[in-house]
């Protein structure tokens, strides 16, 4: 009746089946899917449009000194022009772009990548509790594939979200850099892929060990906001105190965000871009290796 070893599946068989299982839970659940689309819109509306830093430096933001004799309309116009120039050069100096919304929207991409990666790995806690993990372990699927599929689904989800943010940001008025070219979008996805693979491997190594949702939640809450604000995602690091700058200098999100900015809104500095890619690449390789080895060791107990 049953023939022995009738199929000779490749070492990587099942990776798409397991990844797709994760993704289905997301794209087949209309509420979750919708929320994951609405969330970045809200964030961008709140943070990007509410924190209108550029407006601080316009003429109307300053009470004009009462001069005697009063300024002529011509002088007022000149003064306004001076302020506008001042605003543009302050913004340019601080953010490397005159539009804070563009600056922040790109930071949002890294922010979303971080959050989505963290939370989408959490389903592994349920897989353990409900026994799905054990069932998968009892099939010929390799242990590595089980881990990779989790990493891959978290990464794909984050990248989809990030893509969505770019689209929404463009709709909200993202200003591209002078030498932007549509191919740069591919570069954005490349760097996001690297950082997501690294981060999700790490979080999966943490979550795979916990039997309760609370533990990974606590770990994530502890690290995700500090990681976000100790980076250049929302504010340039050069105005931070030294100690914070040092932290930001090691934070892979700083490099990710910078790379995305170089690609989308800055006048691309290719040397800096290469540094960003190298740093994030090395980070991804090291952290993914550690994460996958730790998960592997847990699964072959």
């Amino acid at each position, binding site marked *: *009746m*049953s*023939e*022995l*070893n*009738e*199929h*000779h*599946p*490749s070492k990587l*068989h*099942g990776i*798409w*089946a*397991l990844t797709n*299982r994760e993704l*289905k*839970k997301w794209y*087949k*659940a209309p509420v979750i899917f919708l929320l994951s689309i609405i969330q970045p819109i809200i964030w961008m509306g709140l943070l990007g449009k509410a924190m209108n830093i550029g407006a601080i430096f316009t003429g109307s933001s300053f009470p004009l000194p009462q001069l005697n004799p009063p300024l002529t309309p011509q002088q007022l116009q000149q003064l306004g022009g001076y302020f506008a120039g001042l605003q543009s050069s302050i913004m340019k100096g601080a953010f490397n772009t005159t539009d804070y919304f563009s600056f922040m929207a790109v930071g949002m991409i890294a922010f979303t990548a971080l959050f989505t990666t963290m939370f989408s790995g959490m389903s592994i806690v349920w897989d353990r509790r*409900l*026994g*799905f993990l*054990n*069932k*998968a*372990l*009892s*099939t*010929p*699927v*390799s242990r590595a594939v089980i881990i990779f599929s989790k990493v891959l689904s978290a990464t794909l989800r984050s990248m989809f979200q990030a893509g969505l943010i770019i689209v929404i940001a463009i709709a909200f008025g993202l200003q591209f850099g002078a030498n932007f070219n549509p191919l740069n979008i591919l570069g954005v996805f490349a760097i996001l892929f690297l950082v997501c693979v690294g981060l999700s491997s790490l979080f999966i190594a943490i979550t795979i060990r916990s039997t309760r949702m609370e533990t990974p939640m606590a770990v994530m809450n502890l690290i995700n906001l500090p990681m976000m604000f100790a980076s250049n995602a929302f504010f340039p690091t050069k105005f931070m105190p030294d100690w914070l700058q040092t932290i930001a200098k090691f934070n892979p999100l700083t490099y990710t965000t910078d790379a995305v900015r170089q690609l989308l809104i800055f006048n691309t500095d290719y040397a800096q871009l290469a540094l960003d890619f190298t740093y994030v690449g090395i980070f991804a390789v090291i952290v993914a290796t550690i994460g996958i080895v730790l998960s592997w060791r847990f699964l*072959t*107990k």
Partner: protein
Amino acid sequence: MSEEVIKTEGLTRVFNKHLTAVDHVNFSVKQGEIFGFLGPNGAGKTTTINMLITILKPTEGKASVLGFDIAKQDENVRNVIGVVPQEYTADEDLTGLENVLLCADLYGIPRDVAKKRAADLLKLVELTDFKDKKVQIYSGGMRRRLELACGLINRPKLLFLDEPTLGLDVQTRTATWDYIRKLKKEFGMTLFMTTHYLEEADALCDRVAIIDHGKIVVVGTPEELKHSLGGDIITLSIKDDPDVTELIRTVENVKDVKNENGSYRIKAEYGEVTAPFIIEALRRKGYTVTKLMLTEPTLNEVYLEYTGKSMRDTEESREAFRAQRITMRRARGG
């Protein structure tokens, strides 16, 4: 292929360096039988099964499954076995069919073959009508059947069932037994199942092993085990309370008779055959039997005998394995 589908030698698993869940276990399972692994919760059943299905590594000792070493050839083992876990592992967000196909993918079965098999299996477990419904709406029995279908997708030679009827109502439990019998008959499959329902082991298994505190206490067919206790117990009362001890003793197969306050406690082999002979013998001498009760030893008594304690488990199981009692009241002059 050897006759022995599973063979363990000194299989041991220690957790956290001091908790010995499975302690030097030796047993073998023969081709084509249903082998029951019996014991209370925490006896080491699931740990043993997890080692055999290569989820857990043994701390000591070795075991072979279908000729493959569980430690060194774990991937080969996983290829040829089927596993129906204790939990409902099917993905609730997917449909029944999607779940079966997902299992097929995990075994690397090509899609066209998988689709055909999934259809056949869903038919076998009578879920064809529900195959496109999400598992969320499935009842406990349906989920159990779906797990069964998933476990069979790779056409295993050996199927592991971990507590296949845990938490099912009596009707569904009986239906599940029918599926298990059908599998054995139609596919000539060897089945290894754990249970803490003694009744289930008695009804299904060709051989059982009783495990307690990580050690195997006894192995044998349910009949052998029950027989090793020395037969059935017949309890009877007689009108006017004369002493008939010697008379009963002469009946064939009767091993022992005790008069306990006017009620006779008779130990006899093949109780259901012997009881009518006893009644007949008494009637010929003019005695009237007013009350008769036949108690067949169950695995519960076997368990009691070998471990010195009752199944430390739920009221429910005790209720279910209560001795089968037949009470007869003879109609006057009948």
